[in-house]
């Protein structure tokens, strides 16, 4: 049978295993996204590199656990498999929880990115315009279904990864002052270490959503290496931008900046162009659209599960309501929460906490699922409808 059929009957139809590179890029883009643009301002001391490496190691462990779960042949597959494992009520609660998390995460990501666009590129334009255009781009991608959205990861990666090249000159003298990286061993405890860890941990969050993907999307032999390489890419990127910002600014000046990565690129003067942040910021829209679409599809799936309609093929029926809910959530947060800096920070903080919690809960969830699967037996964890 030929794979990659065009007319998928359902949003979640998967014709065959998704290529390893798509998984790698998916993990990488979901973990880096727009955090790259502003995160070094949180990591203002050189010794904080250890916090990055600690969070990265924990994330690597989490991804390893996740990949091992995805490789298991007896893991529950599809709606019925999950119902048999967890029961309808628990699944309904999970769906409700997942739906609200996905919607809020999408809204905060969109608004955070649009904030950067609005502040740096078009201060005079209404940010709602950018939100609307991005939302419609997400809908346009989401209508292609989960399979094609996952594969869009390759395009999203190519659309943004070249940005790193602009920063390479900053790791060499005369731009780089290597003394700025010292001391690596702190003389005193860095301020708010837990908060710093939480921010980065939340940045690494996202791959836990793969837990609910159908079996046929996963190539058991290669999923582990794909996900781990993706996480490793993210670690390299975070460390790279951390080092670059410290080498150029130094920790004293770094703490005064809001968007150090964006401001750094302003110092590049090419013979034919300056102010390269004007190119870099639009490029990050690739990642934003990709990640938000991925979550939007999850929201549609959660809605479908909550209404109990998962047992019948429903095409793209649930995408519309999920999209409307996302629009409403984004508008509500923008109207009530995003009006001032305090409100903004509160939502970002809330988002960080929720992301960090879901990512931290991943091992526990996997353990519970493994125990339940063992208890109820493999034969219950299949995708056959109950008779």
């Amino acid at each position: 049978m030929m794979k990659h059929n065009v007319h998928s009957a359902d949003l979640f139809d998967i014709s065959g295993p998704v290529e390893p590179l798509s998984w790698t890029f998916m993990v990488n883009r979901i973990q880096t996204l727009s955090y790259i643009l502003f995160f070094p301002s949180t990591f203002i001391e050189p010794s904080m590199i250890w916090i990055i490496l600690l969070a990265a190691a924990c994330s690597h462990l989490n991804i390893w656990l996740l990949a091992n779960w995805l490789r298991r042949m007896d893991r529950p597959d599809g709606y019925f498999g999950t119902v048999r494992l967890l029961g309808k009520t628990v699944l309904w609660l999970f769906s409700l929880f997942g739906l609200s998390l996905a919607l809020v995460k999408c809204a905060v990501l969109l608004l955070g990115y649009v904030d950067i666009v609005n502040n740096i590129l078009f201060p005079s334009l209404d940010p709602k315009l950018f939100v609307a255009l991005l939302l419609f781009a997400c809908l346009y991608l989401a209508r292609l279904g989960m399979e094609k959205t996952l594969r869009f990861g390759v395009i999203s990666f190519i659309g943004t990864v070249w940005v790193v090249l602009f920063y390479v000159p900053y790791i060499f003298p005369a731009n780089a002052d290597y003394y700025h990286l010292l001391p690596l061993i702190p003389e005193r405890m860095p301020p708010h270490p837990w908060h710093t860890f939480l921010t980065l941990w939340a940045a690494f969050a996202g791959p836990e959503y793969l837990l609910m993907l159908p079996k046929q999307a996963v190539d058991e032999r290669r999923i582990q290496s794909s996900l781990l390489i993706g996480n490793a890419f993210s670690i390299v990127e975070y460390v790279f931008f951390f080092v670059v910002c410290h080498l150029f600014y130094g920790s004293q000046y770094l703490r005064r900046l809001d968007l150090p990565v964006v401001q750094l690129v302003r110092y590049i003067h090419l013979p034919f162009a300056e102010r390269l942040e004007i190119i870099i910021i639009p490029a990050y829209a690739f990642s934003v659209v990709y990640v938000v679409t991925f979550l939007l599809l999850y929201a549609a799936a959660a809605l479908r599960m909550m209404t109990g309609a998962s047992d019948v093929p429903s095409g793209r029926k649930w995408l519309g309501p999920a999209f409307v809910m996302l629009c409403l959530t984004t508008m509500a947060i923008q109207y009530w929460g995003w009006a001032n800096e305090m409100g903004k920070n509160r939502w970002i903080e809330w988002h960080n906490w929720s992301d960090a919690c879901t990512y931290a809960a991943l091992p526990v969830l996997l353990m519970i699922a493994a125990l339940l699967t063992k208890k109820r037996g493999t034969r219950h964890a299949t995708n056959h409808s109950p008779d």
Partner: protein
Amino acid sequence: MNWITFWKMARKLKPSSRPAPMADAGGPPTPKQIQDLFRDIHDAQIHELLAEKQTVKLFYIHSLVDETQLQSDIVLPILHGSAAQTGRNIISDEIVQVDTLSKAEQLILEGSVLVFFENDHVYAVKKRNTLGRSINTSEQEAIVYGPKDSLSEQLDNSLTLIRRRLPVPNLKSKKFIIGSFSKTSVILLYMEGIVNPELVRIAESKTKEIDFDGIFDAAHVSAFLEDHIFSVFPQFQQTDRPDALASALLSGKVVWLVDNTPFAIVAPITFFDLFQSPEDYIHRWMVGSFLRGLRFVAFAIALFLTPVYVALSVHHYQMIPLAMLFVLMESRSQIPFTPFWEALFMLLTLEILKEASLRMPSKASQTLGIVGGIVIGEASVDAGIASNVLIIIIAISAVASFLIPNYLMTNASKLIQFALLILAAWLGMWGIGLGLIWLCIHLQGLTSLRQPYLAPLSPFFGRDWKDTVIRLPMTSMKTRPAHLKPLDRFRILKRKI
């Protein structure tokens, strides 16, 4: 149910516009029935030949039959043969006994001569008029070195050119007659044992489903075969080069030859196929790779250069280095329009000139070129309608668009360029970025014969990259494109397993 489904259902309910099928009375047709059927056709001819002890009648349509062959291969053998041998003397590769009136009608329209013997036996002898062009050089895909022959309007000639290149029984051909009035012959070609059978199945079913009165061109056929009608991108490749077709068949693709058109259709194709030229394989591989890469760069220039100019000069002039900004300001100081209107006006003028030069006779188009050059190059600057910088930008993007080997793709790029221009004027570089994202999503959703259009990028097939943006040496191309899922992956016979 969406409106497309509704339209399709409504279309099915409409009465058929096809000619009513022939009522077969049973038994072979009589000369009278045939004459009634083809009444009021001035070149429909019936002749009586008095052979030894029997009268033989011939019926044919003069314009469809080769008169010389008719005389030498049918008339003379009948007249000079003995009664017992009359039928056997006819010289032809294709003699069919006709049992029904409808079959007789079909064969006459295909260029056969109906021969009525007194014993009620009716034979159709194919003597089709093969009037048409001889084999010429391809004008659309001309190359400096390499084979020069190209397909012609005669289906058999085109098939011969391909069969000569692939003289193996694996080259299968299936014939379809499509178009309720045009009765166009379409041949589906594929390499058995290489192509994925699922592709052939899809191609066959799509070809059979074509329901239209007249099919006169390969483009008409592809319009009915394509998966997405709301896309500017060509989903089939059209070529008149038999070497390119043979190569496509060996890759695991299918080919449609359409009667009375010199272009064949190839599918499935990817976005990257549209940037390949047969000449890539004639050059040294480094040169071929460079040229192919250059085409992609040229495509990007053709799409983005003018929109980027508008975005920078309207929204992000701070991106332009100071020395360049002075040049731009001086150039634009006398222009009364915004950069968007200036660029739009010049792009439209250029497109009008390009279109006019295509439609005009070749001698007149030279004059047009001079007039266009003066109008674009000098007069518009002198009149203060356009700036010098914009003229250079438009000229570069116009020349860059000519590097795209596929003409349909060149035209598609114009439309995208206009859309990006509007986005650039509205939202600057962010608008262009958004346009690019929309474009990528659109391409991600496209398919050609139900296969992904962006392969081998998305879905990613690492091994296929050896002949995509770059072209590696032929010795390293040991496998066929994996995204086509060919039955036989290897191009080489001696391989390590």
